[in-house]
């Protein structure tokens, strides 16, 4: 569905942030992109969102290649691929009501239909009451705000949701509920989940890709990698995670 072929990217000529990355996102298979700071995971996500262009390599969506200059394609692409960001305090416009925040993709992508009805369905899907529509972001807790951000991402019924550390800023008791929400959503759409947190990715994603300093060091079924990590970096990463006492 979404394919990256030998993609490289550098913010400057001297430094390559991503080096020859290939991966494919297949329909219905949620995938986690795991790495520590500087691994290039956010850059990879920005490329997949079409916010930046690869220095070399191609990104294909179905039969077409992702061309940020082709506005007709980008309109279709934005409808199919929607983001959720890390910090729900900065990703929601504080001066807009929730109905306008969630309805924004409907407006900007010129999706016809009853906007209030569609927003109401999105709110219900993320477990927020309908009266949330008339309120402002500051009236909600961090977890509720992330639900609003998720409602905005799913309102246009995308095929793929790209989430960047979407639960990292949340407290544990909230995080578990938002992970459950993503899990439910991933039955209907394909989730690409970027995170440094292997525990969250393990709970959420069928497949994962491990990045280290801009390179893919290991990829495959989450279950297999956790059982037998092959690359030394994956082994070190797994060994570093503090575990609950028995």
């Amino acid at each position, binding site marked *: 569905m979404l394919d990256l072929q030998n993609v490289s990217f550098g913010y400057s000529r001297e430094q390559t942030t991503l080096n020859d990355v290939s991966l494919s996102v297949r329909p219905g298979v949620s995938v986690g992109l795991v790495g520590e700071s500087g691994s290039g995971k956010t850059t990879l996500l920005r490329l997949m969102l079409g916010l930046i262009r690869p220095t070399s390599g191609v990104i294909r969506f179905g039969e077409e290649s992702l061309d940020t200059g082709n506005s007709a394609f980008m309109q279709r692409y934005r409808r199919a691929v929607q983001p959720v960001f890390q910090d729900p305090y900065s990703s929601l416009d504080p001066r807009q009501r929730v109905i306008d925040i969630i309805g924004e993709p409907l407006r900007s992508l010129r999706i016809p239909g009853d906007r209030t009805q569609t927003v109401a369905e999105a709110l219900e899907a993320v477990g927020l009451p309908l009266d949330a529509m008339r309120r402002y972001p500051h009236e909600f807790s961090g977890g509720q705000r992330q639900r609003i951000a998720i409602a905005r991402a799913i309102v246009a019924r995308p095929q793929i949701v790209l989430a960047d550390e979407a639960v990292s800023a949340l407290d*544990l008791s909230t995080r578990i509920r938002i992970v459950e929400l993503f899990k439910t959503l991933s039955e209907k759409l394909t989730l690409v989940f970027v995170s440094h947190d292997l525990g969250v990715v393990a709970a959420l994603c069928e497949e994962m890709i491990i990045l280290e300093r801009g390179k893919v060091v290991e990829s495959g079924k989450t279950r297999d990698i956790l059982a037998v990590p092959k690359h030394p970096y994956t082994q070190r990463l797994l060994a570093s995670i503090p575990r*609950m006492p028995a």
Partner: protein
Amino acid sequence: MTALLNIQGLHIRAGDKPLVSDLSFSIRPGERIGLIGESGSGKSMTAMAATGLLPVSIGVSGSIELDSQQVVGATDSVMNRLRGAAAAVVFQEPLTALDPLMKIGRQIAEPVRRRLERESGKTSKDVVQREVRDLIDKVALPQPERIINSYPHEVSGGQRQRVAIAMALACRPKLLIADEPTTALDVTTQAEILKLLDQLVRETGMALLFISHDLPVVAQVVERVIVLKNGVAVEEGPVKAVFGNPQHDYTKTLVEAARLFDEALGATG
């Protein structure tokens, strides 16, 4: 044995809003205690109160005895004698805890000089420099020469936290307060810093108050935990008992969530 830190009936308020309510606990010399809570639980407020670092606009009542000295209502001159000698703090974000305009060597030298002056009334540059080297060694910072002459932004996040730990150790405190010391770090770096903290606390015999929202992290470094929710201690006990058989509903929620992510990782790790 008398407690090193003895908190009794502590209330912290911002205006009418209670931040911490009727909190009591104590730490004996050499004891390692974890303060667990989510955002807004009052865990950092408690640490700030214990070292007298809360702004005057925050109301504190009750009793906090640090090394047998009353902290609540204490003057700056009393607190200045206590800070460092009785308790030193390592904060979450070493980038904001360190002075960005001062080279690392000078930053570590400052608490060293302060302690030497306190202990013997005099210092020499050579003695201070030698001890700075020792401390850099102790926290396993590579290339001491380069580190001493670097500014905080020129070294990595893990190295910055090692510098902050070296500064706390320079005071030779009886109690080390670590407030989310690994939260801003990558997981591989976190593992190294936890190992270092654990080893240093064991070697020096200092007591540890470890503040964190992360249950498995806390379990690695302390023996006993206190669970805070909205400024109230809801549960307290040995790590194994609290994590193995939580009594309070809130603790149960936290432990269940932590176990779910832990179990998702399988048996490896």
